[in-house]
């Protein structure tokens, strides 16, 4: 029995008009953050110049060049990666009905990191664009293995099996990664900044390489929204409502691999967004994934943009990896939310 009090606190849904308005406001904030991200940085550039660089480009101006070749790609990467990771996290938590599930659960991030470390160790690779391919491949292979093993467990691909197989694989591969790093200090030196997760040095070609994956993953995820809501009610309920749950799970996992694999390959393993943002969003909009997913995308992008600005400015001119700044900024707020909102 649900008491009247908890009914009031339990936001199954708000009215669509409020949700649409919220989405609009969110998009507005996102645009502001985007401009802030382009405008702020090591070099002081006036908003006027930023505007000109974007819409009246002058090749002879250094500042314009900085904006076009450094800041703009970097901000776009932050936007894409933030949105992708947040959506992937939401899908993962919906599919596994486990609040501990992050996109990392499928092993994509750890697999990608391992592949990059291995490639550096064996071939001495050190270019970001080559990292991207290894990361994508490593992430996809690991996710495939996790999925395979989860399907071999009792009852097939249940949330529990997926979570267990994922955790086990992540730990295993993480171990192998640190094994290599312990054995070979040179590799450690080369990849440690990448491993922390950073948006520095990303250029537009890198984005072009992976954007098809991200877009496919993005639309796949949005198309699944309704089905994930159903599935989050439990496998049996979903089947009873006529859902082909096996397909939804496979498609969901595929979108996660595309989104996370794509993100990791441009920005390194940035885990925090995927784990935390879905929790924030559920507090805001309730349990319907048709709304959770777009909100997660916007919030994820906003958070990563802000964190990246912070990463550039906090210890200027030293740049911190954004993958490390984010938990420092976001976790206290997350802890506060959990403490006050979860009453059982």
């Amino acid at each position, binding site marked *: *029995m*649900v*008491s*009247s*009090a*908890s009914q009031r606190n339990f936001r199954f849904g708000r009215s669509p008009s409020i949700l649409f308005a919220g989405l609009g406001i969110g998009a507005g904030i996102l645009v502001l953050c985007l401009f802030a991200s382009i405008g702020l940085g090591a070099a002081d550039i006036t908003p006027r110049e930023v505007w000109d660089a974007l819409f009246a480009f002058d090749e002879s101006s250094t500042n314009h060049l900085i904006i076009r070749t450094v800041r703009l790609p970097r901000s776009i990467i932050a936007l894409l990666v933030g949105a992708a990771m947040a959506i992937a996290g939401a899908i993962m938590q919906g599919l596994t009905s486990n609040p501990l599930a992050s996109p990392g659960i499928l092993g994509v991030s750890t697999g990608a990191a391992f592949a990059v470390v291995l490639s550096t160790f064996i071939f001495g690779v050190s270019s970001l664009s080559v990292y991207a391919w290894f990361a994508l491949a490593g992430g996809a292979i690991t996710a495939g293995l996790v999925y395979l093993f989860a399907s071999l467990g009792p009852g097939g691909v249940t949330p529990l099996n997926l979570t267990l197989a994922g955790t086990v694989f992540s730990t295993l591969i993480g171990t192998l990664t640190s094994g290599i790093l312990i054995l070979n200090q040179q590799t450690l030196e080369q990849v440690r900044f990448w491993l922390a997760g950073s948006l520095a040095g990303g250029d537009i070609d890198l984005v072009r390489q992976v954007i098809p994956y991200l877009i496919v993953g993005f639309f796949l995820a949005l198309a699944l929204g309704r089905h994930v809501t159903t599935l989050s009610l439990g496998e049996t309920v979903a089947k009873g409502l006529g859902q082909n749950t096996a397909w939804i799970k496979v498609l969901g996992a595929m979108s996660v691999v595309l989104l996370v694999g794509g993100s990791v390959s441009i920005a390194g393993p940035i885990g925090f967004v995927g784990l935390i943002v879905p929790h924030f969003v559920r507090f805001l909009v309730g349990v319907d994934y048709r709304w959770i997913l777009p909100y997660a995308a916007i919030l994820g992008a906003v958070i990563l943009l802000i964190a990246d600005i912070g990463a550039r400015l906090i210890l200027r001119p030293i740049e911190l990896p954004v993958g490390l700044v984010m938990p420092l900024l976001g976790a206290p707020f997350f802890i506060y939310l959990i403490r006050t909102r979860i009453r059982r």
Partner: protein
Amino acid sequence: MQVHPMKTDISESYALTTRKLALAYDQVTIIEELDLAIPTGKITALVGPNGCGKSTLLKGLGRLIKPRNGVVYLDGNAIAHQSTKAIARQLGLLPQSPVAPEGLTVKELVAQGRYPYQTWLQQWSKTDELAVDQALTTTEMTELSDRPLDTLSGGQRQRAWIAMTLAQETDILLLDEPTTFLDLAHQIEVLDLLYDLNQSEQRTIVMVLHDLNQACRYADNLIALQDGCVYAQGLPNEVMTETMVRDVFGINSRIINDPVSGTPMCIPIGRKTI
């Protein structure tokens, strides 16, 4: 319109009483200034619409929620002043749809009911063993006692949980919707089981029930709750009226006599009458 046909019979004793009880989650008060008396050795059924505070009240009576205000008395003594273990020897409690860890066998579950009687050295006395066997026999779970709970049907599982509270050997049993998720035969089976316990051992039983007709048939004392207040309390005959059903549940109905037991029976009137 408040009807309080409280018993004036002095000789009757009360197992649980509340004085000005206020229960709240967070900032939201569910129950305010509630005075209630649960007669000893009787079956009391709590009925009311969703969200009226039935489960909250049951948890308050079973000291699962600390009262914001007021007192719950167990056999005349304030419940807050007794050790939780001492209470557990007088009052057993079964929440709604509890979950057992994977692989736990029926017998192991039932054995947990002996917790309030055990000490560090005395973890499995002869009395414990007898009580658990007795609880298994009463609930007809003896044959299934070595089966893991997750391999049982819903009805069997519910019986295992009831057996656990029985192993607690308490005079008072509080049950939150003991018949949910059970089919009709299992519902009646569980209610009959509780009725037998009440008849043979004079246990006081308080339960939240959703089915008004079952509540009328099995309860000696019916409490209708509305918005955290007692709308009416008393014999099912007195409480179960068309006015009550309209006021509390917001639905028109006809009350007839149950052809089997003679207790009141509520026939709700919806839009489809033909």
